[in-house]
């Protein structure tokens, strides 16, 4: 059957190709338009329209019951004096740097270690990747057990003679945020590793050979061959990390709900509790707009790259 398709390709009746852009029919058949419009409508209903409403609500004061009251930029002015907002913003930046930076570094490190095709490497990769498929809620509960006062972490500290470090990790304002970052990292590293593994696989081995011939050592090869070659993957990882960091919610919500005393509050958790627990829907929307603004640069650059690739 496969052979049969070959002569048809040069069939004389085939429409004359108009260069590279000639992909299909010139006028779009109605069915094709419907194919496009149905998904577009679904996304408009659940994403584009709500997003517009979200931006508008940010300019209002609303409890969800009575009519919204237009306050202009009042919600944003309020943020300037909101202690919790400041904490949440600082924590979000800290989260970005620690969670993002460490998952990139650890993911790259794991990929470098596990890139060689040796016996058993598939098992190691799977082990690091396994947590990626867990829900963040399940991940959080696993680590919550580890962090308990009588949990494994404190037991280990005790057995190696570091009893003074024993701690109620999640209940202490000084450690709660870091205790929440660790499970998130545990889950993210495998994902980043997979992205880097694909990137490393794409590097032409000839480059390493050439560098070796020129007398480059291990570090020099990494510095001058691997890193420059990974530039596009780095850009992907950066976008993924920033978008994921700003979205992080589940793990914090399941472990601490942003507490104790807002010490592990992120903008995403603060937004959720403001909107759905304090029922301050306008202020919550304004917080969401702040998250959007922070993410906008990354989204835009991601789209620009996608735009270049799309054709």
């Amino acid at each position, binding site marked *: 059957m496969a052979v049969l398709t070959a002569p048809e390709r040069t069939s004389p009746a085939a429409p004359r190709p108009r260069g590279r852009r000639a992909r299909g029919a010139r006028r779009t058949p109605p069915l094709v338009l419907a194919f496009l419009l149905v998904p577009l409508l679904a996304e408009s209903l659940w994403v584009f329209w709500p997003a517009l409403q979200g931006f508008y609500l940010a300019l209002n004061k609303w409890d969800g019951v009575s009519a919204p009251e237009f306050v202009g930029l009042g919600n944003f002015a309020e943020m300037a004096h909101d202690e919790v907002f400041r904490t949440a913003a600082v924590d979000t930046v800290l989260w970005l740097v620690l969670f993002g930076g460490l998952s990139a570094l650890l993911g790259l490190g794991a990929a470098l270690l596990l890139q060689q095709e040796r016996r058993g490497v598939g098992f190691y990769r799977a082990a690091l990747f396994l947590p990626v498929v867990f829900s963040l809620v399940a991940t959080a509960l696993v680590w919550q057990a580890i962090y308990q006062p009588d949990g494994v972490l404190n037991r280990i500290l005790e057995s190696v003679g570091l009893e003074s470090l024993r701690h109620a990790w999640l209940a202490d304002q000084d450690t709660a945020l870091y205790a929440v970052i660790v499970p998130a990292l545990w889950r993210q590293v495998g994902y980043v590793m997979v992205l880097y593994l694909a990137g490393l696989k794409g590097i032409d081995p000839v480059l390493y050979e050439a560098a070796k011939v020129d007398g480059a050592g291990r570090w020099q090869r990494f510095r001058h061959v691997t890193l420059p070659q990974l530039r596009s993957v780095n850009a992907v990882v950066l976008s993924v990390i920033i978008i994921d960091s700003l979205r992080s919610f589940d793990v914090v919500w399941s472990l601490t709900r942003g507490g104790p005393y807002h010490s592990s509050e992120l903008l995403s958790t603060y937004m959720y509790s403001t909107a759905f627990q304090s029922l301050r829907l306008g202020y919550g929307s304004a917080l969401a707009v702040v998250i959007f603004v922070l993410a906008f640069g990354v989204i835009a650059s991601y789209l620009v790259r996608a735009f270049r*690739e799309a054709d």
Partner: protein
Amino acid sequence: MTALRSSAALRRRRAATAGFHLGAGALSVLWLLPIALVVVTSLRSFDDISAHGLGSWPRSFTLGNFQQAWSDGGQQRALINSLIVTVPCVLVTLALAAMAAFALSRYEVPFRRSLLLLMLGGNLLPPQILLIPVSKMSELMGVYDTLPALIGVQIGFGVGFYVFVLYGFMRAIPAEIQQAAVVDGAGPWQIFWRIILPLSRPALAALSALSFTWIFNDLLWAITVLRSDTKMPITAALIGLQGQFVSMWNVIAAGSVIAAAPTVAVFLRFQRHFVAGLNLGAVK
């Protein structure tokens, strides 16, 4: 002389291999340890844990915790809810995304690229900006606190990403195949159903594995459009379990195992597709 050198090289290679397995092995153990821990905890009895502490060596074995989480903790119903949401979501989202990607990649639709990026852009939005309007809108539409609301928002929010990935994949299919079908009198539907879809199977498989875990693992949309405990999917039910069985770590651990089992099964069964899916999604 050469024999000596080659034996030294051999020894060095052996040492490198041992070092690799030592390092990679230690890392894997470190990564698997929390999982082993939760599995062990889920098999211990409450008395054992309360007497010796959560971090002690296990001294008991029971399967009763699973029973308790499954029926008393409501995990059975929650798992069914999760599957009612996840399975149709995966099927419908991928069907819609394949249709849109087909239209955009195989036909000269006006504003092709802008539409594609608009759809992708919708998926990249932080969900926070949508939460309040989506919750209010589902109230207005009369679907608040029903599973169809959750299915709807998951489809609407997810579709843009899959369109983008499938677009890239379908665009790589040679135009000649389609032209040949047109010559044979095939309409758009036949081209879509008989040619493009079968050829896109690898991408569809990868995205199915990926979207199954994403939708199954979601918490935020569920707690935004649902309220009743009886309707919550497994992620939200797990948080409920944590409140219901305070510090009964054996039951909570069993619940976590139940909640993670379906996605782990999908991962182990479709590991290759899974990893391929993650890389498909990355814009190079």
